[in-house]
């Protein structure tokens, strides 16, 4: 997941101005470390030595490659490598030019694909999360007020995670809490509840961007062979995650908690709800802590980023799915600078009313994140 390597291919970036008059909120923007050394100013010397000697250890087979090599170096558009040499997303000026200015973006919600949460050494993981947040604050959100960060927390250590949340809560540069989605246990399990308690108390949504490694097979049927499978399977894993949050009673215990599912699509939500409701009706004796149908928690506590927006054979079917989902649930995202980025001008192949556009491209995110 660390996009600090790969071949640099620079293509001409089209300099077109945005055709959209609408100010957008982009719910998935990837900034990046130029290298892990960017974090050293915020890490105790002990960790500099530790990283030099032992490196990072995560439950993955390779030191420096994804188990499923992506379609492009650093997972990114070939034209997104900054002219000054760093990896895609690592240069603020280039990100401003290619994304924020180009598409008239009022706010961009940052998601770093590096976290300390899946580091096996928990002390190092905690230190990395703290350092990442300091670095995000100093180098990104303080330099461009359009950019909003997520508090990266070591979610497997709830005590440390809550401490880190408390360190940033109330700071308007941080709009949500980021937990990696490939957690060691399903995120509805009790070990994660102190995080939700803090999130609810500080009115910070939980941002669940597909990410991380946990050592579990990437499918519920075991390890698949290809990236073309893995890419889709991370979305399936987010379905299991949503089911977990709902069925384990997280939203019953923390009714004001908001959770945003990011980069997992959204078209699957209605069918998951139909299935859950049907089988809950027969098995509800097992989950007496649920006072409502499972689908109702999806409607009150979960939101979804749009990218990658699905393309039904009949484009109107996407409208149908959003009707089932609820127009207030969907939030536009580009996923810049990744290869499968969605362009706001072409993302939806059916016509939305102005009111619908307003909701999806800005209004819903403004409400969820409490943006001015």
């Amino acid at each position: 997941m660390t996009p600090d390597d790969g071949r640099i291919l620079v293509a001409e970036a089209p300099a077109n101005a945005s055709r959209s008059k609408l100010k957008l909120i982009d719910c998935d923007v990837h900034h990046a470390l130029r290298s892990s050394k960017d974090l050293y100013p915020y890490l105790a010397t002990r960790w500099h030595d530790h990283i030099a000697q032992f490196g990072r250890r995560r439950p993955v087979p390779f030191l420096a490659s994804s188990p499923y090599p992506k379609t492009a170096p650093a997972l990114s558009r070939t034209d997104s490598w900054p002219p000054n040499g760093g990896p895609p997303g690592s240069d603020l000026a280039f990100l401003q030019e290619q994304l924020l200015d180009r598409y008239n973006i009022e706010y961009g919600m940052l998601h770093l694909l590096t976290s300390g949460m899946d580091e096996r050494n928990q002390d190092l993981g905690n230190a990395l999360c703290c350092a990442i947040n300091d670095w995000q604050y100093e180098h990104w959100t303080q330099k461009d007020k359009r950019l909003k960060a997520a508090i990266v927390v070591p979610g497997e250590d709830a005590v440390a995670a809550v401490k880190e949340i408390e360190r940033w809560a109330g700071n308007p540069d941080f709009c949500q809490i980021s937990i990696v989605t490939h957690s060691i246990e399903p995120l509805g399990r009790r070990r994660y509840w102190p995080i939700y308690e803090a999130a609810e108390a500080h009115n910070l949504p939980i941002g669940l961007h597909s990410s991380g490694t946990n050592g579990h097979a990437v499918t519920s049927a075991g390890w698949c062979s290809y990236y073309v499978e893995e890419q889709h399977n991370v979305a399936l894993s987010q379905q299991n995650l949503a089911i977990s949050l709902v069925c384990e009673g997280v939203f019953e215990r923390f009714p004001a908690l908001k959770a945003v599912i990011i980069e997992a699509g959204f078209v699957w939500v209605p069918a998951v709800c139909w299935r859950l409701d049907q089988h809950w009706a027969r098995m509800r004796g097992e989950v007496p802590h649920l006072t409502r149908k499972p689908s109702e928690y999806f409607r009150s506590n979960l939101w979804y980023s749009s990218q990658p927006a699905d393309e039904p054979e009949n484009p109107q079917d996407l409208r149908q799915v959003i009707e089932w989902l609820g127009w207030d649930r969907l939030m536009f995202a580009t996923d810049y600078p990744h290869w499968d980025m969605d362009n706001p001008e072409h993302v939806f192949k059916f016509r939305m009313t102005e009111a619908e556009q307003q909701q999806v491209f800005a209004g819903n995110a403004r409400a969820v994140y409490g943006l001015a």
Partner: protein
Amino acid sequence: MKSVRHGGIDCDVHPALPGMAALLPYLDPYWQEQVTVRGIDGLDLSSFPTQMDAHGRADWREAGHKPGSSLELLRRDALDGFGSQLAICNPLYGVLAIYNEHFAAAVARAMNDWITAEWLDREPRLRASITVAAQNAEHAVDEIERRAGDQRFVQVLLLSQDDVPLGNRRYWPIYAAAARHGLTIGVHAGSTYRHAITSNGWPSYYLEDYAAHAQGFQSNLLSLVHEGVFAKFPSLKVVFIESGFTWLPTFMWRANKTWRGVRAEVPWVDRPPSDIIRDHVRFTLQPTDAPPTGADMERVLNQIGSDDMLLFSTDYPHWQFDGDNVWPAGFSDTLKQRVLVDNPRNAYPRLKEALS
């Protein structure tokens, strides 16, 4: 209603093995002794707890009997109850989860002898899946060869959450044998519990396990398509049993989009996944996981984009619906007729030959 119901082919009924004692007559002396001396019993799958209401409908139960263990009840409630001309038996005993592959092969063989003698020979309306020990494809192929001469065996049964996704080449000898003999591959919901049943670990509740079968099936569908199973075995049909199907349209949209972006990785997949799925994969009717209204169901059926894909099933004795309310709202009489008879006949080459 009655006319459209009559004469269907029920593609998922579950005769239950009462226990290992019932298999003893069909085990060889070595395994008879092992089972007896070691007290081996109770290999029903944790995926399908037999005591749950959901897995034994109250009005289909008989005190003191495991749901599905009585032929008389299955006749009365499934065959006569729905006027079915044929029903396909899918026994769910835990053969696929046994770690000792020799034992697994022995139990598979005994299961097939048992279902032949105690079900197929006693009820001409029954057909069956071949139980195999897929832990070792050689064992599985031996068993398929042993049964292939009996036309009442119409498919080979696998589970949806095994060690690796079902497109993996370790299963290909099984697919080759199935294709050779005109047998369909049936994939039933169920996990061997050899690894976490979600990629985020173990959920707390059975409700989550059951819901997660849908994601497990979807992972398998990706695997079957992208590993190239249908390119290699163009005549092969795969039936997803107890998978639900209302997730299929949105799954296909995503699969198509991902394939368009990443298809250089799997050059043998030479057309959109949705085309391949519509040609090769079928789904049993129950559970339906229906949307709130019949009109919504019509939209889902329309998005599925084919009248050929659904196969009638009651999932007897599991409790998926009440009374004889097996049809969800939104199915036209024409579609029902296809689901009842035409689609099963086309999905199972051995039924096509058997029926006029």
